[in-house]
């Protein structure tokens, strides 16, 4: 009997939860705010779905009901991607070590 591909995706999902668990516990508490902003940015990889939806509009009918939602989702996700990564970058630039030791 063949295994449903869903099971493979489920396996990836479950294993990723465990990876996330161990990786996030090792994040230093002082970087919890950048952690939130970067998770925000990466969860916007949902833009791939939005792009598929947007490109699905064929040339006679670029703006159909489905692709309009796709286009809107592209913009929303793009705000997050650019905003999320850049603000994380901005924050991380500020974390500096003591210049000289006493």
């Amino acid at each position, binding site marked *: 009997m063949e295994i449903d*591909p869903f099971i493979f*995706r489920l396996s*990836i*999902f479950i294993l*990723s939860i465990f990876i*996330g668990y161990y*990786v*996030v516990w*090792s*994040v*230093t*508490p*002082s*970087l919890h*705010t*950048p*952690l*939130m*902003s970067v*998770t*925000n940015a990466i*969860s916007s*990889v949902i*833009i*791939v*779905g*939005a*792009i*598929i*939806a*947007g*490109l*699905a509009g*064929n040339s006679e009918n*670029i703006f159909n009901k*489905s*692709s309009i939602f*796709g*286009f*809107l*989702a592209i913009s*929303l*996700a793009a*705000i*997050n*991607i*650019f*905003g999320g*990564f*850049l*603000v994380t*970058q*901005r*924050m*991380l630039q*500020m*974390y*500096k*070590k003591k*210049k000289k030791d006493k």
Partner: protein
Amino acid sequence: MSANLSAIFYLISGVLFILALRGLSSPETSRQGNFFGILGMIIAIVVTFLSVGSFSGAFVYVLIFLLIGGLIGAFIAYKIPMTAMPELVAGFHSLVGLAAVFVAISAFLNPEAFNLGSPGKIKLGSLIEMSIGAAVGAITFSGSIIAFLKLQGIMSGSPITFKGQHPLNALILISILVVTYFLCSTQFSNLFWILLAISFLIGFLLIIPIGGADMPVVISMLNSYSGWAAAGIGFTLENTALIITGALVGSSGAILSYIMCKGMNRSFFNVILGGFGAAEQSSTSGSKEQKPVKSGNAEDAAFLMKNASSVIIVPGYGMAVAQAQHALREMVDTLKKNDIKVSYAIHPVAGRMPGHMNVLLAEANVPYDEVFELEEINNDFSNADVAFVIGANDVTNPAAKNDPQSPIYGMPVLDVEKCKSVLFIKRSLSPGYAGIDNELFYKENTLMLFADAKKMTEDITKNL
């Protein structure tokens, strides 16, 4: 591009996202981590374009919308003050939620584009995944909007409770399950819209009873939801990058909520069910008697600190509100010139989001190796001369250790009272968020400085 090849690239971008989070384990590796994240995102987007492969008229519009969003995002990222980071993150969560909802809607309206069947005959598994993604996305969206409004101060931070709130919420949650069941069994499209509407509604209702100082838990929780929403959509689109990312973000948010709850010694459900701080306020205000308080001015504070050999600074949300972090660092610079040892003590729930205080101190150029977490520094208070509490309150309240009647009893607190003297900047004697009096105010060795945190800090610097 063949489906297999693009799947491999999605896997690569998923791995890069894992490395992005891994980088955050120390400030030195964090910038590299962020770069991995950006790289993963670029790969995912480019591969999507290549795998669809139709560069028709729609392609231009996709780029335009991408650019519009990108410009808005970049603009916000450069303009936003660091003190507004909690609002920003809440706002961003709402966008992830809404994007998930929109993607689910377009997949529902045009399932052919995603290989999910045809309208009215969507594959059962895909429809279930889509519904979960859409419902969680909608909850994330409306919940984050409320969190944003509360953090921004547009909506009052105090909990909004009404009779029958919990039964109502339970009823709506059950109805979400029922509607999902019927949607999947009948494919009746109106049920999809009903599902979205009640999910939006429950998002609002779940967050309104939660008070302002519980926002660290709420933001983390919504962070987690946005991940689960993304994962739901990832299953629908059969996209590994999205599934991996959703799982990472989901567990990240869940861990942060756990850490925040532990920082307050409260269970997750206690926070989520809300209403904390509203009930207690009335019970304590009746029994309040006038107790003597020693209050001082900037000169007294400067005198105390000048004669100290070590000072521990305890920042809290009040510092963020007063934007006092730069003034504080200037004061510390002056102290250091006088050979006084200074360190910072940060409580896990200080501020309005995890790590909030750390970012503000980093912004003010405080080196991160002078900043310590609660467990690292709590034993040092007994050896320090002065504790300088700026804008924190409940996290220093000794009642958490010695008054079993107190609503915050059992919460880990900073042992500020063990210092030889305590300086407490506060605008008035009003109780903190938990609505409980802080006995620290009335201690023999406490000097209250009633003023705006920023102004007082500047005045002290002048007097040093």
